[in-house]
């Protein structure tokens, strides 16, 4: 059994950013040190204001084999996208 410290995925929200984005991973023995290591590894260039760390083992991911069922239907429902609607130029602020 591996004696490695567990792997954690790191998510950073940048200064002025709207959401946390996946930045990479770190090894750490516990949550507190995971935050420290994440900060030391992924925010050296002042990229972040907020950090999330999650144990990699806790992440539930969609099955790539099911990508078709999960995501293709959305591709055909183009009316969800604002660019589908061709409004007259005269209409402002929309």
């Amino acid at each position, binding site marked *: 059994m*591996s*004696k*490695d*410290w567990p*792997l954690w995925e790191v998510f950073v929200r940048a200064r002025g950013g709207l959401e946390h984005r996946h930045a*990479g*991973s*770190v*090894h750490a*023995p*516990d949550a507190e*040190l995971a935050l420290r290591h994440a900060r030391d*590894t992924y925010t*050296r*260039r002042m990229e972040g204001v907020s950090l999330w760390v999650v144990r990699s083992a806790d992440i539930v*991911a969609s*099955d*790539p084999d099911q990508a078709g069922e999960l995501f293709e239907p959305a591709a055909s429902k183009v009316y969800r996208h604002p660019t589908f609607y061709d409004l007259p130029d005269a209409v402002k602020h929309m």
Partner: protein
Amino acid sequence: MYTTELDKTAGSAAAPVAVEDPALLAAFEARVANDEFIEPKDWMPEAYRRTLTRQISQHAHSEIVGMLPEGNWLTRAPSLKRKAILLAKIQDEGGHGLYLYCAAETLGTSREQMIEALHTGKAKYSTIFNYPTLNWADIGAIGWLVDGAAIMNQVPLQRTSYGPYARAMVRVCKEESFHQRQGYDLLLEMMKGTPEQRAMVQDAMNRWWWPSLMMFGPPDDNSPNSAQSIRWRIKRETNDELRQKFVDATVPQAELLGISVPDPDLQWNEERGHYDFGAIDWNEFYAVVRGEGPVARERMKARRAAWDEGAWVREAAAAWEARQAARRAAAA
């Protein structure tokens, strides 16, 4: 990466692989040819998984071992500014190693296994780091030449086929250009100094030029895995093409510095539009790849010592967390 060719001998004696579904294989190759990214949970051929694991982990090892030749001069950096710059650079290298180890882990190998492979000599790393840093100008030469060569190898990897590797490389490349510039800046400053300093710079050039050229790997006619590497987007151009590019870019930079390139056969070839350069000592190249570089033993000893002597620290932290977790579970 400059490590692509290091295990070509291992590749030819590949372990037997179960016959893979040709439909899956075809679909995989089509995706890669279509410039798509392969992600950790996607199906991939065993050979791809093995090659990528080796490539990425060797790249990671190189970054980590690379901290040592520079760390050698960190405590003797001759000004506060240079000390801070070198610290930041070495930190970046450690960070790069981390990004890459984590990317390799997504392919199913643990950090411990990879480090074990490095320490027992099973895994290779960029052998440029098995050369010693003998004077302060070496620090500049490493930034200018070694990182310069690395950048040339790395830029195409930002669109390599394996997603985690590509994402790690985007991060690495963003941080890498500072490395080359600070090295060149360091040498520029020294060239404006005393005669002894100028001599140090020329001496560093004399020792680091040829090993830097070797970073691009064996000549094309001795690189059997090139075609597969290009198909899987692990490399874009051949070893010789990149090496030529490097020489063409770097010789004018040396001229601007006011130092000579230690190659009597170096000459601009008007017809080709490139520099002709002398023969590389391939005996030296293969000796260093075999693990017989001038300070290869010292580098490995240092890394082994750090890992082994740090075991009690890693165990202590794990033990503490295990107790905390048990307490949390009991309280729940």
